[in-house]
Each structure stands twice: as C-alpha cells, then as structure tokens.
C-alpha cells in the first residue's frame, strides 16, 4: 500500500473511531494505565483504548503476530502525524510498551512473546520495573536480591525500591542475582505476577505529597523457570538495553507536560510589566536565558530525529538528552514557582489557583528528574566515557 493510501485510510479510520473527548489535551489525572484493575476517566477513554489496541496501534511497529500494528517506520510516522493532526490522546501509558516490550522483542523466546506482548498491547496487564534496591542505586549492578535455582522453580528473596506504581501493577520485570561470585555477569532478568505469595508493596510518600514509588519486599517468592528472560546470568545486557529505552521515554515523553501555565504569560500576569518589560529585571533575564536553553534543547531533539531519519548515527547525542531534559524541566518549574511568588508555594485549598497548586507539586516532583532512570551525574559519566573517550581512573 502506498503511503498516500495509508494516510487516507488512517485519517478516515481515526475520524470514525477517535471519540471527540479523546481529542482534547490530556490531564495527567485522566491518563489510562490499563491493567487488571484499569480505571478509565470515562467510557470514551475505554473505547479509545479498545479500538486502538485491537488494531495494534498502541504498539504500531511491533509485529502483527503478537498483536502489534506491524507498521513500517514510514507508516508509523504517518500514523503519528495523523494522531497529532487531530490532537488525539495517547490511549495508553505503559511501562510494558515503553520498556519491557522492546527488550522482550529482542531477547525473549517465542513462547514468552506470545504470552506477554498481546496483553501489553491491549492494556490488559500493567507492568512495573524491579531494578533499584536500597543498596543499589547508581551502582545498579551491585544489586543483591537473591534468586536460587530450586530445581523446578526459582526462589527469590530481597527488596526492591523506587518501583514506580508497584502497588497498582499486575506483573514485575525484575533484576535478580543468580551468581554471587560475579558482579555484572551474575545478574538475571526474570518476570513474575505481583499476586505471587511473598510479594508485598508499600508506597513511599514523596516531598510532592504524591506516592508514585513503592518499596517492594520479596520473601520466598516462587517463580516458574520459564519466566527467565534471556540467558541465566545474562540479565545485565537486557537491563542496560532497557535503560536506554527508559531514558528515551523519560526525556521525550514524561517531562514537561501538564502544568497548564505558560512561563511568560504567568510572569506577565503575576509580576507585571513596566514600559513593556517584566517589572523584575533580574527575573526577566533569567526567563529569557531559560527559554533559549529550552529552545536549544528542542532544536537538538529535532536535529537528532532528522539525522536519524536520514540514516545518520546519533549515538553521540543520545546520552545527553536525559541530562538536558531533566535540567530544562527543573529550571522551568523553579522559574514558574518563583514567578508566582508565594502564590506558587500553596499546598492545597481554595485560596490558590488550581494551576498554581499543580505548579507547586510539579516543581517538587521535578527534583526527581535528575535522579530517576540514571542520575545526571551518571549521565555525565556516560558522556565523558562513551562519547568523549575519557579514561577510567586507575
């Protein structure tokens, strides 16, 4: 099928099947995460996920054999353009789509792909990521959660932390230690149902007042042996690949949306203008400098996309995106809160504009941007060593 035909058909299908309520800006409270206990803000959201999932368009480029859309990259580009054209919401947010699915496609067995990918695509199972541990943060490969071979099953004991939405997830993909005599080469990648006896989750209250992360305790958790992904002790390679997907999805999707306040408009209204300029000259200059930084970042994302489309190598640019995205988002929210004055530091209640309250919470949440998914310091290490070729200390 020619791209022209594909575009025409896609446009027609979207016109018929994308409910009007799904063509509005997505508030984070209305995000659909799917899963056994999926909650939908309204029936249109449920319908939109069903229709897109049925076509495999929640995972447009995954093979149709597993329920994916089976689209070529050029076709997917058309689909994304058409979705943007009508302002369609993402039908599903999912760690399965962004992180686990891509590595399962690369490292999983046929049986595993058939078992888990269709439910990810349809949003029926919600996944969480068991990576960090109390003693293994930036030094992730020092993780200690033990996984013993008990003949017909694995037995897992240990603790995970910063597990996003573990309390709401159905299954976990998890890094475990299967050999204590080797560091990186003693790690395996397993998956299990969160309903398995011995799995316990406890939400962690953050400075923002939200609890998106959990502690996960694993006590004598029995995991069937066919739930090992890849080779025994071969998990680190999968872990690293997944981190790449995670950093990409963090830096291109998760930061920067949802506050509903434009920095310049907020400053014009809250600080006021004198002779056409912001009354606070110092703030004005810092906002201008920030906006240049932000624009430079967006131009760099677009340059990398354009170079990648043209078949160029952008390996030297990839590690800087997560670092720069975190920095830009944090600066933006710092400036926004400063711009709103004490009105930007309200915690709750009618005395504050809802957008201002959101700004406060986002500002506090953004402190995690330079920590989660690899700290900014770790990202700078990656730039220094892999891109600039600087040596390791002796």
């Amino acid at each position, binding site marked *: 099928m020619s791209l022209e035909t594909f575009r025409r058909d896609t446009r027609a299908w979207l016109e018929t099947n994308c409910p009007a309520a799904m063509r509005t800006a997505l508030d984070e409270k209305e995000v659909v995460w799917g899963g056994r206990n999926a909650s939908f803000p309204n029936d249109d959201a449920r319908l939109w996920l069903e229709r897109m999932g049925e076509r495999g368009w929640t995972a447009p480029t995954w093979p149709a054999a597993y329920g994916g859309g089976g689209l070529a990259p050029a076709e997917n580009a058309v689909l994304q353009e058409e979705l943007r054209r009508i302002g369609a919401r993402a039908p599903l947010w999912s760690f399965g789509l962004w992180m686990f699915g891509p590595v399962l496609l690369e490292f999983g067995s046929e049986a595993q792909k058939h078992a888990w990918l269709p439910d990810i695509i349809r949003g029926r199972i919600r996944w969480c990521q068991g990576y960090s541990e109390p003693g293994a943060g930036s030094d992730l490969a020092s993780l200690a959660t033990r996984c013993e071979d008990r003949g017909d099953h694995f037995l897992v004991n240990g603790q995970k932390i910063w597990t996003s939405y573990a309390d709401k997830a159905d299954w976990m993909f998890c890094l475990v230690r299967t050999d204590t005599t080797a560091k990186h080469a003693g790690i395996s990648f397993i998956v299990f149902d969160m309903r398995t006896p011995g799995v316990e989750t406890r939400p962690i209250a953050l400075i923002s007042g939200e609890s998106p992360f959990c502690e996960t305790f694993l006590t004598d958790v029995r995991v069937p042996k066919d739930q090992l992904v890849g080779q025994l002790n071969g998990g680190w390679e999968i872990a690293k690949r997944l981190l790449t997907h995670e950093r990409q999805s963090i830096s291109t999707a998760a930061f920067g949306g949802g506050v509903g306040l434009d920095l310049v408009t907020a400053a014009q209204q809250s600080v006021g203008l004198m002779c056409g300029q912001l009354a606070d000259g110092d703030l004005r200059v810092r906002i201008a400098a920030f906006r240049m930084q932000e624009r430079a970042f967006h131009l760099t994302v677009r*340059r990398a996309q354009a170079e990648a489309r043209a078949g160029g190598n952008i390996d030297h640019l990839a590690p800087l995106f997560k670092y720069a995205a975190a920095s830009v988002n944090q600066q933006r929210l710092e400036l926004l809160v400063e711009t709103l004055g004490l009105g930007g530091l309200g915690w709750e209640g009618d005395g504050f504009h809802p957008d201002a309250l959101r700004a406060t919470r986002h500002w506090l949440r953004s402190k995690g941007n330079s920590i989660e998914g690899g700290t900014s310091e770790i990202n700078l290490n990656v730039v220094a060593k892999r891109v600039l070729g*600087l040596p390791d200390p002796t």
Partner: protein
Amino acid sequence: MTRPLTDDQRLLQDSAREFFAERAPVKALRADRAAGRPFDPALWQEIAALGFAGAAVPEAYGGSGMGWRSLGLVLEAAGRTLVASPLLQSALVGVAAIEALGSDAQRAAWLPAIAAGEMTTALGLDEGAHHAPSRIAMRAVREPGGWRLEGQKRFVPDGATASHLLIAALAAPTPGAPESLSVFCVAGSADGLVRKPLAMADSRGMADLDLTAVRVADDAVLGSVGEAATALEGVLDTARIGLAAEMLGAADALFALTLDHLKTRRQFGQPIGAFQSLQHRAARMFVDLELTRSCVLAALDALDDAAGVSTSVRSAAAQGASVASVASVASLASLASLAKARAGDTLHLVSNEAVQLHGGVGMTDAYDAGLYLKRARVLETLYGTAGWHRDRSARLDGY
C-alpha cells in the same frame, strides 16, 4: 528547519576544514601577528579562488550560489583555526547588505567583485564600544548629485583594510522628511575619510573611522534613502548568524584541543581526564556545544528559507510589508538572537575552561588556548553580547 547536511554540504565542509587546517592553521595567525598585518592577502586570494568568498553570491552574479548554510559551514571551518581573513565582513556581511539593500546595478557591479576577491567591504555601524544599532548619530546630508557624510565610526572590523566601507548613517529622502538609517558605499580612498587602525587583543584588524565632509554620489546609496532600516535589521541578523557559526567552530576546535590535553597530561600517575570532576566539566561543555550547534544550524536554515521571503519584504517595504513576511522576519530575528547568544555563552565557557584545564601552559603565549580566549571575547561582543540578545529576545516575545 534542522535538515541534515546534504552530500554537497558535507563535501564543502570537509574541503573547507581541510583547506584551513593546512593552509591557515593557528600558526598562520601567529605569523600575521609577527608581521604586523591583519591578514595575509595571498590567503584571501586562495579563499576566493576556492569559491568561498562567493559562497552566498548567486550564480548570476559570479558566485557559487550555495546559500547561507554553506557559507556558514565555511565560516565554521575558518573559526576552528582562527583564520584571519575578510571572509566574515565581505563574503557574509557585505554580500548580505548588497543582496538585501542594493539595486540591480549595484549587485551586478559589486557582488562579482567580492566573489572574485577583488573587492572587500567593512560595515561601519556602531559608534561606541557597545553594539547599539538604534543609537547611530552619523548623518548624511543631501547635496546636489549626492550626499555628504559627517561623523565617526568606532571598532569597525576590517575597517583599516577593506577596499570599500559600508557606512550606516541617518538620512532624509527629502528635506524635512523623517530621517532613517541608510547605507552608503564609500571607497577606502575617499577624501575626508581617516582610518585609524586599532591594536586589538585578538591581533585582528579593527579601525576607528573619521568622516569629515566625505562626499559620495547618488549611486553610492545602497538601494534608496529611507527604505533601508528594516532590511538592515535582516542584514545584521545574517551577520549574527554567520558570526555564530564562526564562534561554534572556534569553540568546537578549542574543546577538542582541551579534550586532547585531558587525555594526555598525566598527574598522580594517570591522565587528568580520568578524574571525575574534570570529566563532568568536559561533558557539560559537550552538551552545551551540541545544543548550540542545533541553534546555529537552525538559524542558517532559516536564512536560506527566508531568502525568497526577503525579496518580497524588500518590494513590499514601500507599500507596507505583508503580515506573513513580518512574521517570518520576526522568527528569523528570534533565531538569530538565539544563535548569537548561545554561541556567545558557549564560547565564553569553553575559552575559560580551556585555559583553566590546560593549567600553566594555558597561560603561555606559546600555547593556542590564549589566542582562542582573546578572539572569543571580540566575537562575543561583536553584533551584540549574549546579554544584549537575551534582552532583545525578551522584547521580541513581549516581556
């Protein structure tokens, strides 16, 4: 915007980098400095022969018609080794001014001469130590058959050597009409023109110009009096973007030099680049450079995209420019300020870090880091500092 380089552009970039690295490495600047000359005329002839001087000149006027991005790539390559030549003032600023403001006859007379390396230009705009295009005092007074120029220009790049000076002055099209900026082409040998060379820290040629009753004919006015102000802003934006490309090249090369030092200089039994505090400083510079590169490339693309538009702005200026043209001029202005401010900040950071990370040798005249540092500050200041462009950018965005 932000298109990848075409094959032709990649070839051009490679050949320009190769040529300057071989024919005009930093030691050529040292030789010029020792000889007390602002640039080597033989080198300029070679640059012109390669087609670089006419990179942005349309083929119809004897140029290679490769466009602004291509000229930007040449300037970036020249910036890498601090090449001293009339490239910026003549091939970029002069060509942009004549293209945007000049009549057909002027284009036919001057553009081929610049492309051939026979004519060089210098833009006489600012009259003080700071970039301030809105504070021009020089006046052109109507006289029978021409104009009389009176006033001073300060810190004019290539002002002592250019064959022709492009002088911005206030003039009224008819007696009593409001004055606006116009540009006059004045021969370097004109009576009443005194050029006073300035010894600048970067060893490049700048001069103060005194104009006392300098008389020029009507055909020395670029275009016509009273119609230049808007287009001149576009010329300055072109200058800022090309300058940002040169600055990017200088920062990129100086960063490479510094990185090399981090890998080879050993202390405490290992390369100093193994220390994390230095690795992070290097990584931050890299991030900064890549963000700036995106801005410069996007701005160069916008110049090429606007090339068609500028023609319509010029013709529309008399009748009141169309809304669409004004919008695209505004976005070009915003990108020019973005590119110049980012390039300024990046070059400032990299030049300071280069000296510090080189340690003692970074302070020596024998080492190149200092030459980059001195050149960096001149380029940062020319056509508006980063702070100047942040202010402009805020004004453009209404705050």
